[in-house]
């Protein structure tokens, strides 16, 4: 594992706010650079640090971070916009279907006789399928986040 990969995995595991996160990641950079300055390899440092997930959890535990609560909040923050986007995309797909019937012909001025104009409309490119698909994806994401929220809570 490289230094970058280690730090990335720590970053991914951290649940705390920006200040704690920045301090922990800064310290990790210093740990690696100090060791390199004294001729130690990345592998040696990683061995002393332990698994990145354990390091992140231990650091937050000692900082008094309530990890389960923050992770639950993160799930809710993910579920809420995903749910809203799912509804928005669904409405968009319905709107497409409304303004773009597959193919239609209408007549302007038909009642006036020979000067009637025929208007043919083509379906909009991509029609309602794309927003509908996006809506389903967002709904799936929202359901996943809600399930994880309740699992973490339980």
């Amino acid at each position, binding site marked *: 594992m490289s230094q970058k990969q280690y730090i990335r995995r720590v970053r991914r595991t951290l649940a705390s706010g920006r200040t704690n996160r920045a301090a922990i990641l800064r310290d990790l950079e*210093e740990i690696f650079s*100090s060791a390199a300055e004294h001729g130690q390899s990345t592998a040696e440092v990683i061995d002393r640090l*332990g698994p990145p997930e*354990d*390091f992140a959890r231990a650091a937050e535990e*000692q900082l008094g971070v309530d990890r389960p609560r923050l992770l639950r909040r993160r799930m809710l923050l993910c579920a809420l916009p995903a749910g809203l986007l799912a509804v928005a995309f669904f409405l968009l797909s319905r709107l497409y279907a409304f303004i773009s019937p597959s193919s239609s012909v209408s007549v302007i001025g038909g009642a006036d006789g020979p000067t009637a104009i025929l208007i043919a409309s083509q379906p909009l490119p991509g029609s309602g399928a794309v927003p509908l698909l996006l809506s389903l994806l967002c709904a799936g994401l929202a359901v996943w986040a809600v399930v994880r929220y309740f699992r973490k809570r339980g």
Partner: protein
Amino acid sequence: MDGKTVQQFKKGSLEMILLCLIGRGETYGYELITALNDASAAVLGYAREGTVYPILYRLQQQGLICCRIAPAAANGGSRKFYSLTDQGRQTLAELIAFWRDYKTCVDNFVAQYETECEP
């Protein structure tokens, strides 16, 4: 010897040892690890950043140590220097007093055992 028992001893004392090291003068992470390993590796085992840094975070959180970040010319990055706060110095004095009583208390039990039970 049971590794878990030794681990518990180390866990309890590392916080005080770190306060002593930082109390000697402003220092930074790598220097702390080196000082720990030079003086106590034979007894306490090698110090690991994965153990020491989380304790430093707690000491800082409790207001016992403070830190300042300064550029490190040697590696082109920055270095975090730790020092004791007034509260940290007071807590360390209390911990040292407790440690002395604790040591005497445990030594008494050991001495009694050695006198009565050992041939």
